[in-house]
């Protein structure tokens, strides 16, 4: 069974791209309350995606509090990482470098919006041309900010990979 804990980034960015369907092969999608509230404020339509499970997070551990303080994590990231302590085999989905660093240090599998979009081709959820099109309009259609030269390098890598 595949399960994921979502931070606000992928939830919002995939929704902005009308691409939340790339998560549809995951069995359980847990969204901590703080992340839910953040998405509700910035991209409420994201929460209409079927299968999202709004989860109240129990007490945050002392060690995680210190990590959060050190890395200036927001409440959503803190709750998501706290949920990962309960479900350490879940995939942690975030676009925040600090949250990802903290997750890596704790040994969690962690990926973001870009990886999820590309994975959708591998998993047969979207075609390669569809994902390339989405990536090309990423700067206009989403609030996920990537340096343009980095995005161009990714597109070149994918075009090369998918046209072999």
């Amino acid at each position: 069974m595949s399960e994921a804990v979502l931070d606000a980034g992928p939830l919002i960015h995939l929704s902005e791209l009308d691409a939340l369907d790339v998560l549809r092969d995951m069995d359980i999608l847990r969204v901590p309350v703080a992340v839910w509230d953040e998405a509700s404020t910035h991209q409420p339509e994201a929460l209409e995606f079927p299968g999202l499970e709004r989860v109240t997070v129990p007490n945050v551990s002392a060690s995680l509090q210190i990590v959060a303080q050190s890395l200036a994590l927001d409440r959503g990231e803190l709750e998501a990482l706290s949920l990962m302590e309960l479900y350490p085999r879940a995939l942690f989905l975030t676009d925040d470098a600090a949250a990802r660093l903290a997750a890596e240090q704790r040994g969690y599998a962690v990926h973001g919006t870009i990886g999820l979009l590309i994975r959708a081709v591998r998993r047969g959820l979207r075609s390669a041309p569809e994902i390339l099109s989405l990536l090309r309009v990423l700067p206009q259609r989403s609030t996920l900010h990537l340096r343009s030269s980095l995005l161009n390098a990714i597109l070149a890598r994918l075009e090369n990979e998918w046209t072999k």
Partner: protein
Amino acid sequence: MIENTTTINLPPRLAEQIQSYVQAGWFPDLNSLVVEALRRYLEAHQTELTERYVWQDVEWGLRGNE
């Protein structure tokens, strides 16, 4: 701010270096030093980290085996 206590394991030599910084008055305690070190690391490497993570995602997207 919520106060918490936790335990971290440090290699002896690193622990000695940290202790010397605290004893010299650079930091009031070990916790402050660790917090500051992590904060500075992230500030210095934010762009680099983001790009590294994006490329990790590209490879995972293409070849992940989950």
